[in-house]
């Protein structure tokens, strides 16, 4: 790339970031909408039906009003793929942060990011080593935003299980949702990370939330069915629909270790990807 092309690329990165965050905040992905619509069709509890109707109406109104789906606009967790052969630079990372700052001002977003101890707000949703920017190589240059709200994040869990406890993984996932109850704004999607190290398991659980929710493996379906049997229902008011999908991602781990993380995602499972033109 020529010297003069580099500032242009940085501008395109920050613009793509702002667009990804905006699209994520306003438009719920089609696969999530489809799962909510299906859930309404099969839901047998009257109160739960009303809750699902409210959610579906809210999704339409967010698009019509061009406003964020939920007032908790979250922390924008970023996933980037950089074309093979291209180097990810600190300037590119800064361009992503600039895009988030612009999104915070223009959409606008609630400034959610604070110092963990003094609780002082940075007002930009950036700073203090946040938000996380995960970079991988891929075929195209893409920017994905996954804004994560606090209600569902706060009831997520990680456990370092014994390898002999592998049969208890479904129980741990179901128990996590039992303890969370209506607080994470169900119906939820459960991202589960199995394996890796302590930190990797949590990352896998979050990455699982990027996966489409229109299909599940037998193992995922089994856990999803168990969670739904709890009857927590939309918003904890009871019903058949507690969990829209369970998505599991795995990684190798130490022979003496079995990390399992469950990242709970509310019905507003926001994610959007924008390609950076090269």
């Amino acid at each position, binding site marked *: 790339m020529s010297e003069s092309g580099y500032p242009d690329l940085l501008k395109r990165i920050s613009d793509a970031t702002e667009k990804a965050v905006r699209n994520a905040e306003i438009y719920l992905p089609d696969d999530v909408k489809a799962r909510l619509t299906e859930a309404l069709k099969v839901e047998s509890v*009257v*109160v739960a039906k*009303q*809750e699902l109707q*409210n*959610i579906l*109406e*809210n999704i339409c*109104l*967010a698009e019509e*009003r061009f*406003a*964020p*789906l*939920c*007032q*908790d606009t979250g922390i924008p967790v970023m996933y980037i793929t950089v074309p093979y052969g291209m180097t990810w630079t600190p300037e590119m990372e800064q361009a992503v942060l600039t895009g988030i700052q612009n999104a915070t001002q223009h959409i*606008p977003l*609630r400034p959610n990011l604070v110092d963990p101890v003094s609780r002082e707000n940075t007002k930009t949703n950036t700073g203090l080593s946040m938000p996380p920017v995960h970079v991988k190589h891929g075929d195209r240059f893409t920017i994905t935003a996954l804004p994560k709200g606090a*209600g569902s994040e706060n009831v997520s869990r990680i456990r370092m299980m014994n390898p002999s406890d592998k049969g208890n993984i479904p*129980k741990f996932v*179901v*128990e996590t949702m*039992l*303890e969370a*109850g*209506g*607080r994470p*704004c169900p119906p939820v999607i459960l991202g589960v990370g199995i394996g890796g190290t302590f930190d990797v398991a949590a990352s896998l659980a979050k990455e699982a939330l990027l996966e489409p929710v229109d299909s599940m493996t037998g193992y995922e379906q089994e856990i999803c069915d*168990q969670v739904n*049997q*709890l*009857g*927590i*229902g*939309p*918003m*904890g*008011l*009871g019903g058949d629909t507690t969990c829209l999908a369970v998505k599991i991602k795995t990684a190798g781990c130490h022979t003496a270790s079995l990390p399992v993380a469950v990242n709970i995602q*509310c*019905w*507003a499972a926001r994610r959007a990807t924008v390609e950076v033109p090269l």
Partner: protein
Amino acid sequence: MKQLQTPLGDEVLSLKAGEMVTLSGTVYTARDEAHLKIMEDGFPFDPKGAVLYHCGPVIADNRIIVAGPTTSARMNRLTGYMLDAGIRGIIGKGGMSAEVRELLRGRAVYFAFTGGCANLAAARMKCTGVHFPELGMAEAVWVIELDKLPLTVAMDAHGGDLFAVIEDHAHEVFQAMYPTSTTRI
């Protein structure tokens, strides 16, 4: 579906947990700071029959951009004063404590509104005024006119508590599913 209109009177006493209603008329937003300020300085509005909405809205030029419900449990300890003053209804998400459930007896109800439905709420609301603007946008007491907001009576005036019933049931199901678990989490 019953259509309720503020100010609320004795009609709230006949409502049952699990019943769905619509609510129209004036409500007042109040989060933690507003509760504390009211307890210190008194009510800036007549609390008799009034309805509080646990909500920190986004408002621009007196127009409501988004206004979904916030977690009510944060206001558990601050609610007795409100009910003693004559508040007849509370709107929020997630329900409230067993202590609040007892305080509601014979006088008020708790309505659940769908979490995250910030646009649905905004589309059925008009902002007509503000008290304590110095508390900032999220914590100020906004005066809001509702037009048939769909709500569920989650805690009634007879000790009925839909959240508690559902939670207890979920624990029973879990115990049956995994009988080796001896302790309730």
